[in-house]
């Protein structure tokens, strides 16, 4: 028996979210007294055996050109075959873009109960219960899974990556691979940018910045912190910033280590997407801004004055 972890990669690169899933899955395996195994469906430039340091003992690698792009229908069938070979009782995904497409399909295919967006290890003391966020992070729920096989997708940034010693045995796996019905014709990636949902630090700004021309100081701050940039909904709606920066209840839900909110009032719908951030810093000129109630640190002041100073101060400690 095993815990099988889906190792998600893009352009030959294992995604950070997969290291989290590997660490998390290996911990579950330890808890259940079974082995942790991985499955990878693409060619990865990284030495797969070295992923053993996260606790996986064995990695099934399926190589097939039809798997170059993620097609949930095709991937699901292949992962189901690997799951059977590995006698998996728990299958772990990251609840990222690919996980959201594949995990539900696999759950339906294998009639294996799914917990989407888990934030902690399962409680196996009495059955199998997993904690996840609900109501856009305003609450959590403990979900009991009654089926013999369980599918868990782990919320990004919810579980700390831990690396130890060890190498994994990499075994080629021959699977029946269908021809994808979804054909990818074009991929655009903002190169060098840190994907918002994976970022450790996020610098975000709202309508308090007055206009798109003032985002330079936000980007400067993000740069010294190696942070991703985000914005409130009205900012994206007004096309000051691209839609893929919109965080909140109807945008991305994120959980970075540090969230810096500049000129954002802190409306309940905004907080819903960012309240799982570990540390929240608010910069707002209005001391009554509701965001201060949800913040860990705050500066009451004019963003145009505070933000450039903050960037300089950080530069100093970063040397």
């Amino acid at each position: 028996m095993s815990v099988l972890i889906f190792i998600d990669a893009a352009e030959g690169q294992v995604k950070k979210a997969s290291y989290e899933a590997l660490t998390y899955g290996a911990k579950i395996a330890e808890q259940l007294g079974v082995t942790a195994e991985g499955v990878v469906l693409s060619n990865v430039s990284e030495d797969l055996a070295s992923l053993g340091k996260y606790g996986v003992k064995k990695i099934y690698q399926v190589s097939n050109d039809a798997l170059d792009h993620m097609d949930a229908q095709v991937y699901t069938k292949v992962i189901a075959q690997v799951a059977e070979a590995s006698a998996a009782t728990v299958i772990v995904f990251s609840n990222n873009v690919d996980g959201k497409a594949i995990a539900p399909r696999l759950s339906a295919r294998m009639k294996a109960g799914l917990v989407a967006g888990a934030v902690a290890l399962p409680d196996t003391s009495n059955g199998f219960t997993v904690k996840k966020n609900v109501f856009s992070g305003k609450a959590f729920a403990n979900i009991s899974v009654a089926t013999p096989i369980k599918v868990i997708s782990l919320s990004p940034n919810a579980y700390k990556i831990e690396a130890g010693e060890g190498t994994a045995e990499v075994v080629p796996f021959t699977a029946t691979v269908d021809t994808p019905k979804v054909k990818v014709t074009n991929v655009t990636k903002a190169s060098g940018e840190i994907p918002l949902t994976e970022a450790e630090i996020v610098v975000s700004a709202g309508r308090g910045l007055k206009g798109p021309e003032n985002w330079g100081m936000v980007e400067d701050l993000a740069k010294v912190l190696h942070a991703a940039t985000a914005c409130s909904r009205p900012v994206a709606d007004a096309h000051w910033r691209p839609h893929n920066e919109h965080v909140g209840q109807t945008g991305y839900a994120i959980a970075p280590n540090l969230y810096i909110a500049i000129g954002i009032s802190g409306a309940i719908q905004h907080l819903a997407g960012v309240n799982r951030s570990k540390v929240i810093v608010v910069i707002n000129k209005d001391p009554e801004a509701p965001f201060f109630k949800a913040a860990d640190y705050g500066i009451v002041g004019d963003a145009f004055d505070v933000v450039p100073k903050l960037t300089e101060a950080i530069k100093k400690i970063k040397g």
Partner: protein
Amino acid sequence: MKILVCISKTPDTTAKIAFTDNNTKFDVNGVQWIINPYDEWYALVKAIELKEADPSTVIHLVNAGGADADPIIRKALALGGDEAIRVNTDSHDSFYIASQLAEVAKQGSYDLIFTGKETIDYNGSSIGGMIAELMDLPYVSLATKFELSGTKATVTREIEGGEEVCEVELPVVVSAQKGMAEARIPNMRGIMAARTKPLKVVEPVAADSLTTVAGFGLPPAKAGVKLVDAENVDELVRLLHEEAKAI
């Protein structure tokens, strides 16, 4: 062209989140219910746009829920659905709900099935993928753009740090998010018309439930904000570095 749009009912985004019955039930007291924003703003409006481009298009709405979902279904009809089907159930298990929706979808032989990206209460992001698997259809999730030419759909979907354009032959299941369309408000004519549009209630088919909610909880409250003087940003940096260990 026949389109099925999956519509769910969620608490208003400002609703107070509290629980009753020893933290096993969401407290519905005083809660305003809305159409899940992703279903309304993106999935449904996209379907309406497709109908505007080709008036022979038929839009059906489906909801798995109790009679208390009827008002939001009527609102969706007012926005532009032609008729609605409600599967009478109170279940919250994704697989059970997806099984019901897939059954309706099979009966109606739709060319296109739209869901929202996720419900803002249970945040499963799961129903669309499950329906696709139960029907053995392709699934394009987290779509931000959708165009149709004949029976071929060109869909843009989100990937980490970018987007991907893909092509797929109908029928297909698509989950919609921001970018797909712009939110609309129902007009008087739509509201009047919605009163007489068919809303059919069907009983659920036999299906398994794979999960149950054992209990809910609220995250611990924040300790309170530490304010730093605007003239002293160095102090903020020191706190973030030494105390919070965040930078």
